[in-house]
């Protein structure tokens, strides 16, 4: 769907929530973190990242706040809200179920 990341729809949002679980980050840092942790497998384009962030904002799963960044430029930091935490748990369960199902099919079919 969106972007070239090849992710299942909705997965990107879940990953962002997971990354924000630790600390508040700005968009660029989120993209970096995604890339690093996935060992360059997931290179999320900006045209996918920012819409995903907007969707999270709109749903109230994350909050945004302008703060000075490490290089003293104004940056917008995203942090998880309680609703976002709950959502992450729910999505993880759903995702695990889905992956298990896919794996079962791949192994037995």
């Amino acid at each position, binding site marked *: 769907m969106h972007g070239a990341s090849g992710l299942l729809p909705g997965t990107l949002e879940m990953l962002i929530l997971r990354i924000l679980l630790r600390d508040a980050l700005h*968009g660029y840092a989120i993209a970096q973190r995604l890339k690093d942790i996935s060992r360059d497998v997931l290179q999320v384009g900006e*045209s996918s990242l920012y819409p995903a962030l907007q969707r999270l904002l709109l749903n*109230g799963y994350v909050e945004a706040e302008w703060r000075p960044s490490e290089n003293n430029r*104004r940056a917008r930091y995203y942090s998880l809200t309680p609703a976002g935490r709950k959502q992450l748990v729910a999505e993880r369960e759903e995702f695990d179920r889905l992956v298990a199902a896919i794996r079962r099919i791949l192994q037995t079919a």
Partner: protein
Amino acid sequence: MRSLLRRLRARIRYRRFDSDLAEEMEFHRAMKQRELERAGLTENEATVQSRREMGSVTLARERSREIWIAVWLDSLQQDVRYALRSLGGQPGSTIAAGTVLVLGIGLNTSLFTFFNAVALRPWSVADPGSVVTAHYVHSSASGRGTSGFGIAEYRYLNDHARTFSGLIAWRQSGARLGHEEIEGQTPFSFVSGNYFDVLGVHMLYGRGFLPDEDRVGNPQGVAVISHGLWERHFAADTAIVGRVFRVDNVPFTIVGVAPQMFDGTERPNAQSFWLPLASLPLLSADPAQAVSLLTNPSHCCSRMAGRLAEGVTREQARAELEVLSRQFRTQWNEQALKNAPLVLSGTAFLAQPGVKASLIPILALMFAAVMLVLLLACANVGNLLLARALARQREFAIRLSLGASRRRVVRQLLTEGLMLSCSAGTIGLLVAYALPALLLRAVIDDEVPSGIAPDARVVVFTLGIAALACLLFGLAPALKATQAAMETLVARREVTRTGRRLRSALLAAQLALSVILLASASLLVRGVQQAQTQDPGFQVDDVFVVSLAFPGQAYDQARGRAFVSELHTALKADDSFGSVAVTNTVPLGNTRNMTSFRLPGEDEKQSRMIQMESVSPEYFTVLRIPVVAGRHLDATDRPGGAITINEAMARRYWPDGSPIGQTIVFRDRRREIVGIVRNAHTTGLDTVEPVYYELTAGEPSTRLLLRSRTSDPTPRVQALVSGLDNRVTVQARPLATYRDRSLEPSRVMALTAGAVGLLALLLASVGVFGVFSYVVNERTREIGIRMAIGARASQVIWLVLDSTAWATLGGLAGGFLASFVVSRFLTGQLYGVSRLDPTAYAMVATVLTLAATLATWLPARRATRVDPATALRVE
């Protein structure tokens, strides 16, 4: 619910999401740039590289925006804003397109407004859905006809019907009011006493009729007047109730003023006032006959309607009425309407039996004409938009390459079209508010039907028309232009010669449509011309119609008869006048005396309707109508004796033998035919109906025809009348004015058709002009090169013409073919002019050639002035 609140909060908190997003993405890019610089790139390289890596920022923003705002709503707003800017950017062509559309839509809406008000809307009464009109339907050789009910029959039905909460009856009539000139005929109805109660019409002032005011044998001079009459004639006097006004010089007391919306039950003819049926004898020259009309079971032809009782279906009501009417006729041994079936229908004019069949073709023709104008307007605007859209290819190409979908761009263009057509529709509605009433007032002298104004139905119609127009003129150019823009993207240069086939098709369609409209218009004009110049069969020049009005009650029948006879003698004795005749109808004067006759040996059932003229022997001398066989009526004949007939009657009833010496039976008396006179168009300029002439018995005919030796006989006639009785008012008018007036409807029709046709021509010319200008523009470069290598001006002009020659020829040929077909529907209005009339088509050809020459000449001339050097620099 909670998630909704959450969203709402987010929406408020991040309402500046757009600028936030822009700044944050710029930060993102800056970070990327820094990273690249660290990796060893120069600042400039890093800037460029970071930009490239960011990909389409616009796309990201667009997608983010989609998330925040219901997508369509946002893009709609955007489209509208953009459309406004783009339309405003080229005010000239916007105004041109808008004007053309206003004309197209305004015409359609006006016609529909009229049609809606006159034909579709039920009577303005309480709960019109439960009111039905009743008719007898009978089929005869001449087609299906309907007839009404006798007043005696109505009273019987009203007394016995259980399926109706009330039945009403009325008769339409006309009379001269005190203030009007002698020929004036104000339409009014005689109505049953329960009329206003059953219809649930609440008076603006005063009251409706009381049951006592409609008792046969006890006529009361009371009247309810319409809102229109109240305003026009009584200056909206609020203390009107109780005032007396004169109807045909008989005093009536006003008891009520009807509300503005109620214009009677004779739609589309508005009524000016209402009198009780029982007052018929007051206004009749023959009171005894009027009483018989009210009581004799064999009379017919009043109209009847009723309000269905609660829970009763139309079918139940119809069945009951049929049973009751059969009972009534058996009771009186009345055979007149044998077994004619009864029908109930709604109160809208179009719902009346027989109306649909006669009205639909005319309306279809009119709607077809205005629809053609709309199509023409659409073709025109379509062409204009196409040219404009093609000129914007570069812009579309850029937008497409920036990631806008083609659908989005098409929608953008359609929004522009929709804004154009909606604005045009709005102005069209305003036109429809004013135009129909204005036109009606110009055509009708009396009461204009109330409520000729757009209602919800009209608004819906206009919206539909506007949307249709938008699709018609907007979709094709939008698709074409975006396709061209996509080709531009691929070919990396502007596609210049595209949309050509579409443009040719539009041009051909425009030409064809305008040919159809022009041809119809010129045929109608020729028809009127023909009617005006044809020999009516009687002499119009120098003949004057003398009309008299007697001072009301002072003149009874005998007195009136005596006066006419004295005046006749006096006029004959005067040197200023040639022959003088007495008549009961004026030639082409809009009134007909219908009566029924049968041939000897036939029984009553075979009676047929015929027109009768009661005249004095001089009638034929004054009008110079010659006798073709037998003799004229003369002084030796007596009223009620011999008659003469016209050729049409002779041909219809005695196709083989001579009718001279034959007899016909009229009111149970045999009348001998002594002569046949030449056909004369005394009742209408189209076809001559069978007529028979009898000697006037001197019933208070108030009209004389005279042949004057002076140009204005009025003073002399006036003097003679005053000499006899100065209370009698008199008026003398040339017969020609009657002829002109009878042509009025046809003339209005021809005029309207002409106006529509000219409008069509104008639209088509603008269209042709536009297309040629465009062709010249498009090929400026080519023309320049050709001129540079020595092409002559004529060759260049031919080059331009050639590119549209097929479209032009095809359009014209198609138009002419189609008009042959269309003209079949016009034959009724052509007064004998052939529908292939060469003059009419020559007129069309001339006008079209002139218009086309003008429309092509200007662009063609510009083509020959193309400066090769400039032309080559164009690109």
